[in-house]
């Protein structure tokens, strides 16, 4: 019958484009969250390594964000933001929560990197006349980065996949788009497989280049 085909129609090439666009949105929100969150996280990590008092207070706050499931943080923030006068669309709200989430994880990775460099190495750098920032830039950064790079890649890949949760706010990224198509086509296995392939296509280059970079460093 004519009417049933308007509600349920098969998967077409246009739908693949639709998923592709959604994958780009996943990539966009993830890249923004990972890059901004990493920069903030590095400074938080520096703060964590400065003193015990800071490490305790800031560490507790970071622990809260790391312990509460991301989906709850998203729903809470999206619904409470208007109360404090923030009018955010799903993308903006999702991005802010993802940035906070990323920076909390990166903070601990960064602290690990700074600790991996160690006080004796930093004293040696300072004894050559380097100032605090030169020590950070030329000694702590390159040595610490190599030490915790695999951990950072893990965080980045995690954020890329966790960005799927932003779909519950209504932002049409890869997972949300898949859900929409599944409702229309009733072809869940096919569409979820395609969505999975897109996620893999987004993640694989990251882990591939990360491995290449690690190999180059280890030479």
């Amino acid at each position, binding site marked *: 019958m004519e009417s049933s085909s308007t509600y349920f129609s098969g998967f077409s090439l246009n739908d693949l484009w639709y998923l592709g666009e959604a994958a780009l949105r996943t990539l966009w929100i993830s890249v923004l969250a990972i890059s901004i969150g990493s920069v903030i996280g590095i400074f938080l990590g520096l703060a964590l390594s400065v003193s015990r008092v800071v490490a305790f207070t800031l560490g507790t706050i970071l622990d809260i964000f790391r312990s509460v499931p991301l989906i709850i943080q998203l729903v809470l923030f999206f619904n409470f933001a208007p109360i404090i006068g923030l009018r955010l669309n799903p993308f903006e709200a999702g991005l802010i929560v993802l940035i906070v989430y990323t920076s909390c994880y990166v903070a601990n990775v960064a602290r690990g990197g700074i600790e991996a460099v160690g006080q*004796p190495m930093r004293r040696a750098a300072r*004894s*050559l*006349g380097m100032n605090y920032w*030169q020590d950070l830039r030329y000694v702590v950064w390159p040595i610490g980065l190599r030490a915790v790079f695999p951990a950072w890649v893990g965080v980045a890949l995690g954020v890329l996949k966790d960005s799927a949760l932003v779909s519950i706010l209504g932002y049409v990224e890869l997972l949300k788009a898949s859900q929409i198509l599944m409702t229309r086509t009733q072809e869940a296995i096919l569409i979820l497989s395609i969505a999975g392939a897109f996620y893999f296509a987004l993640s694989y280059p990251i882990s591939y280049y990360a491995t290449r970079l690690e190999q180059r460093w280890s030479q």
Partner: protein
Amino acid sequence: MIKISNLYKSYDDLEVLKGINLNVSKGEVLSVIGSSGSGKSTLLYCINGLEPIQQGQIIVDDIDVHASDTNLNSVRQNMGMVFQQWNSFPHLTVLENVALAPRIVSKLPKAQALEIAEKQLRHVGLGDKLSKYPSALSGGQQQRLAIARALAMEPKCMLFDEATSALDPELVGEVLDTIRLLAEEGMTMICVTHEMGFAREVSDRVAFFHEGVIEEINQPEELFGAPKSVYLQKFLSKVKK
């Protein structure tokens, strides 16, 4: 060159240095001996400004190291320091390790920094290792790399903090030879050391630290030959065993 007067230093409640007075003149080699925890290494950290002090004054080359208006970074450029652990930068080649500080601290052009680095590496006998990474070097070679790295800043004096303590016995000699070479060239040096033979042979004076004070300071022949302090006598008899 280095004038230390009435220096007190403590970590929280623990008093480590209790009134140190010491002058080291230009070209002099002073060895500092004493048992662990006597404050020897702390003295070097204070001279270099890596540790704050509670009381007293340290003047290096007419600059009060711990005065509030002193730029520690520029003080340290005149003062090379070599640590027990060599702390070579693992991500840089041997040549880059030495050229880094001249380039970013002294702001020399890259070519000139590399030239200085190469000269200092040849000086300590690592001229054939320039493009190697530190991980390919032995402990003794890495410690000589650390010496070259400090020398590249063209310091007026050098501080050695137990530079050979972390080395395998067979590698101690090459590092001591390098330090000896610097002594012959007239470098002002303070060497905290456990190598009594070295202290005796190279130093102009030897200071014996005991519980945060200079218990005895004298020329090596006197200090080792006829120690006056009871603690020094005990220390030397233990070391000889």
